[in-house]
């Protein structure tokens, strides 16, 4: 019977919905990429894929945000 079959299909989908429930936790794991296709920052024209260079540049730049060490000690 057509209606019964449709109803069964809907029901099966619902059952799957309940079973397919994944724990929705989005923990960041250091250094892992999760999700969509996108170019990495070091794959840009400026870095041409040199990840190590990009990382050392970022570190240097982060350190520039402190004036301590650039001032005379006191």
């Amino acid at each position, binding site marked *: 019977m057509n209606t019964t079959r449709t109803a069964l299909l809907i029901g099966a989908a619902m059952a799957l919905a309940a079973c397919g429930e994944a724990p*929705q936790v989005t923990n*960041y794991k250091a*250094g892992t990429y999760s*999700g*969509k296709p996108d170019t990495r920052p070091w794959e840009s024209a400026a*870095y041409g894929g040199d990840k190590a260079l990009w*990382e050392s540049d*970022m570190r240097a730049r982060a350190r520039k945000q*402190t004036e301590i060490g650039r001032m005379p000690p006191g």
Partner: protein
Amino acid sequence: MARMKFLCDTERCIECNGCVTACKNEHEVPWGIQRRRVVTINDGVVGQEKSMSVACMHCSDAPCMAVCPVDVFYRTEDGVVLHDKDACIGCGYCFYACPFGAPQFPQTGTFGQRGKMDKCTFCAGGPEADGSDAEFEKYGKNRLAEGKLPMCAEMCSTKALLGGDGTALADIFRERVVRRGGSGAEMIGWNTAYGSGEQKRQQTRGGDK
């Protein structure tokens, strides 16, 4: 491996709103949207008045990511939480969930018509080709791809707002706190943004790097 974070030093923030303006200008953020805001706590209470600049903190266990029905968010190796505006349906769930009020919408939302969600990208653009016009139009500049840190932090006049690798920021902050005799030692928002996720990970994975 960098883990990008923001940190605002409430002992230094003078509520000049320079970060807000810099961000709006750098990314030509749409009218009515402000990716960063400065909140003044205990305004007018002598000795207790502190200001803090806040935007998307790029959480470790990001609530926005967890609730988005279309799964438009993604996270880079460096912990930056980005999203794909093309797929966003403007349901507003990320705004309900976000602890920092970061996601915003260009429309008022009558009949749920909010438009595409907009939030801070840590100056890392979106899925479009880095530095392309399409990327700029939707998300603004991609400074990370140029080897620069977020505009708001880099131009902060008192260096209250810091952006970049979390360990580097924590080091800078610790040096400061020691110098000023231990005051203002809290990293407001850090536990909310980075606490549970990274602590949980350390418990379950034995603290891998």
